[in-house]
């Protein structure tokens, strides 16, 4: 993994994923390890993303590294019309590692090919966001004690939601059972179902959010994104179809944890927040440890 870019979760093997999770646990136990002394990390956010950027920058600070960069493209040369290629060539002369978020799909793969230093994709449009997937995996691993043989429910926008797609691919190493709950118009795309078929992984599709969740180990909720709909009426029709309320959790398993990549709108009622099974805020906190592990591993400073 040393000196390799992380563009897509499928760039990492099962063993590499497990190694990152072990390192993340080590950083959680001991968060201030000054392993990046003398390293400069470029944080290039061509579109704003407060949570992801602050999580990365916290991870870098805790590791004792220095940060250069910008938090949206209006404060970079991109606003003067500089190409991504030129920006990356320039920045890779200054830094030891690049963290990049970009609104265009495929921008991360392209930038990683133009960069002299490794690049971590912090989200390229609706395409990939592998560090989110690793923090999701870390959250599952931490709360369940294993990644193997879990019953994972995914709820909400399964059509456009990149987090569920990447999580599905990453979890496919660990013999899961999937249950997909979504409105008809937001069902899991065929290509992912074919992928699961090819791996012999069981999955079930449901339109209704009912007591079937009592079988779940992980309930992964997602937001229905307004910006994905060209038809406002269609958005209004589906936005409140699957809302999780506290009373629905009464008979669920003790080990169940509720995950959500955030931001939440109203798909999880606030009365769930104080239920010990609600895990989405800790999940976000885990993002710092997962990102510390990714950065330290790629830079080869953590054995």
């Amino acid at each position, binding site marked *: 993994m040393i000196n390799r870019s992380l563009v897509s979760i499928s760039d990492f093997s099962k063993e590499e994923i497990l190694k990152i999770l072990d390192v993340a646990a080590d950083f959680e136990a001991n968060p201030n390890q000054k392993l990046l002394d003398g390293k400069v990390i470029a944080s290039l956010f061509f579109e704003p993303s407060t949570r992801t950027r602050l999580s990365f920058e916290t991870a870098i600070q805790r590791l004792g590294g220095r940060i250069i960069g910008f938090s949206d493209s209006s404060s970079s040369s991109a606003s003067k019309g500089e*190409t991504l290629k030129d920006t990356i060539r320039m920045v890779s002369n200054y830094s030891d590692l690049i963290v990049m978020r970009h609104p265009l799909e495929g921008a991360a793969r392209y930038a990683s090919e133009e960069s002299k230093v490794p690049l971590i994709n912090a989200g390229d*449009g609706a395409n990939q966001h592998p560090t989110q997937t690793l923090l999701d995996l870390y959250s599952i691993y931490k709360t369940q004690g294993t990644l193997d043989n879990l019953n994972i429910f995914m709820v909400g926008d399964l059509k456009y939601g990149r987090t569920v797609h990447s999580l599905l691919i990453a979890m496919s190493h660990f013999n899961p059972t999937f249950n997909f709950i979504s409105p008809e118009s937001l069902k899991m795309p065929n*290509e992912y179902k074919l992928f699961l078929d090819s791996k012999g992984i069981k999955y079930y599709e449901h339109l209704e959010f009912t007591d079937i969740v009592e079988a779940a180990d992980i309930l992964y909720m997602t937001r229905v994104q307004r910006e994905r709909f060209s038809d406002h009426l269609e958005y209004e029709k589906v936005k409140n179809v699957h809302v999780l309320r506290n009373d629905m959790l009464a008979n669920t398993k003790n080990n169940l944890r509720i995950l959500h990549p955030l931001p939440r709108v109203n798909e999880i009622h606030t009365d769930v927040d104080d239920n010990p099974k609600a895990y989405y805020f800790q999940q976000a906190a885990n993002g710092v440890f997962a990102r510390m592990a990714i950065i330290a591993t790629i830079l080869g400073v953590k054995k």
Partner: protein
Amino acid sequence: MNKELKVNAIKDGTVIDHIAAHNLFKVISILGLDKISNPVTFGNNLESHKYGTKAIIKITDLFFQDDEINKISLVAPNAVLNIIRDYNVVEKKRVDIPDVVMGIVKCFNPKCITNNESVVTRFNLIDKENVALKCHYCEKITDEKQLYVF
């Protein structure tokens, strides 16, 4: 019926037959035949028993490597190459879609980096029969219906 083509036979070179008539000029452009100095003859909208109409190209003293000629497979999947030596067909070859398609096809995704910055497109062939190409960059799949060749 007079089946004879109104173009001369060539002594040595390549004859590309069974090109769909509407894609003749794409084939010429992909192979760069508009930029070479060899004699090139082509016929378009010729009668074809199999496909209705077809196009044919004859190039004197030019022989293609397989990876060069396979570039036309996306626009002329039924093309047949006749290798001519001393007026005789010494070999017939069919085209084959390559596993990696570089710089010929446009990604259908308007938000793909390749449609917004000058990047050479690159696809991995994931389905030969129905022509499905996965973009190396945005990872979206361009299929036959969305296929646009530069």
